[in-house]
């Protein structure tokens, strides 16, 4: 279910770190919690964000959820598909539904993130669905 190569936050974002580039999305659990996603708002390319700061919002019909930056860095690209067809965040949250890519400043920050095993355990502990 949750890809082994990802790291996860307690706020249900995933991140895949590849060199200095981090691809960020929301987890399958998060998209299920939100329901039908109809709008995605992302920061402009070039924006600098600190870890745990807002990295935009994902909105379903009934709720608004913030996406928080898992790592500190600069936004280097946005997924154009999620802006025109936000429902792909529901259908493929760990793949086609990625949100942004960051140029990471400090790779050591990943130490504060959860591994797949830890995240799955975290979901169970939350009384997950």
């Amino acid at each position: 279910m949750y890809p082994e190569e990802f790291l996860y936050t307690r706020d249900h974002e995933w991140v895949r770190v590849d060199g200095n580039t981090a691809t960020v999305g929301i987890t399958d659990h998060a998209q299920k919690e939100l329901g039908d996603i109809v709008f995605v708002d992302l920061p402009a390319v070039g924006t600098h964000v600190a870890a745990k700061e807002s990295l935009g919002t994902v909105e379903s019909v009934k709720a608004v959820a913030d996406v928080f930056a898992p790592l500190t860095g600069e936004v280097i690209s946005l997924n154009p598909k999620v802006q025109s067809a936000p429902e792909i965040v529901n259908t493929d949250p760990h793949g086609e539904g990625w949100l942004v890519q960051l140029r990471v400043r400090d790779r050591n920050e990943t130490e504060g993130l959860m591994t797949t095993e830890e995240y799955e355990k975290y979901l169970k502990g939350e009384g997950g669905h």
Partner: protein
Amino acid sequence: MSRLENRRYTKGAVWVNIELHLRARALTLSRGVCYVCRGRRVRGLRVYIVPSSGEGPWHLRQRTQPGFSNLGVSLATPAEITLKRTALFDAHRQAGARMVNFAGWAMPVEYTGIVEEHLAVRTRAGLFDVSHMGEIEARGPKALAALQHLTCNDVARLALNQAQYSALMYPQGSAVDDCVIHRLGEDRFFICVNAANTQKDYEYVLANNPFPATSDVEIRDVSEGYSQLALQGPAAVVILAQVTAPDPATLKTYWCRAASCCGVDGLLARTGYSGEDGFEFYFPPAESLTVWNGLLEAGRPHGLIPAGLGARNTLRLEAAYPLYGNELDEETTLLEANLGWISKLDKGEFIGKASLAEQKQKGVRKKLVGFEMIERGIARDGYPVRINGKLCGRVSSGSFAPYLKKSIGLAYIPPEQAAPGQEMQIEIRGKLAGARQTTLPFYRRAKNDHDKDAKTQKR
């Protein structure tokens, strides 16, 4: 995130979504405005409180309540409070519904998804459990006179088996609640009211009954005696006809009668809250599963699916039907809410008539308008509305509209600025996005043969 597990409850009427608030506080730091509490504080803590008398997670609103000492400490966990359940609670869970606290009831907000359920109702049919709705009965020789005094529409115009959209009135011309009154006999009326308001309505009706010392009118809260299912959508009549007698096709819009559905006797009304053709069936709760399963089975070949309160809200918003707590409250007159059409100032005396008559002459203080977003963004309940940069009102209901596929909303603004085409800005969590006023409703279904036959309908 609307996880029940993240909520903490007060003993009475509210829950606090702690996770959402914490997420919002992080946003506060980055943008300067907490869109959750919008800067309000309750005893030093910024919180987002949703009254259970409010409308569920998509109606997040701020409200300060008295008695909030030790907030976050003395609040109960979900396991410690008991939400009321309809007779179909287990059926909803089995159908995969996500359950939420709605007005103190555990209700399905969605099954397969709000968008799919919304589209099913617009194009085929959806089945809603609305058993949380309240029912109040008024009977006796003075029942008609009592309701004429308490409500704004002209109850005397109701023929036997006819139904009418109306409102219980405050003296200031605002609604205690909006309701549908069914005339079941010369001296017998059956009133469907909002779940969140049932107790308040019942007490208000008792307290303001103009014939309290006589037995000429008997008023009873009969809510526990009824389940209510709403079958809505263009295929509703065909589906219902398979399992219902007499033939529902011969029932006109806003008429009702005794009927047997799936072998269960009850009251069938051709009413609804979706903007589509549809029916509402009131019957004994013990028979709920029989009717629920019977209708779903009869409807399966027609694409009928169960639909939750999420779709119910987006459907009513596209149809621009008011929701009590959003468009209607103690402070808002019927004229301001575009409900002049149910305010029958010529019917004789009723509570609030003088205020409405005066306002009709002098003009309203605010007006309900519809708008659609012309820039990216979704307007949501409570967001500020600006015209030429000046704060002039708030969004009363706002959402992405699944059938119209755009972001729409209703807002109260100064009457002089109400005009279709007028551009406005909606303040979406600190950022302004353009919107334009439209005519209402946003969505109106195409008329069919049934409607042409039913031209004589009165609401």
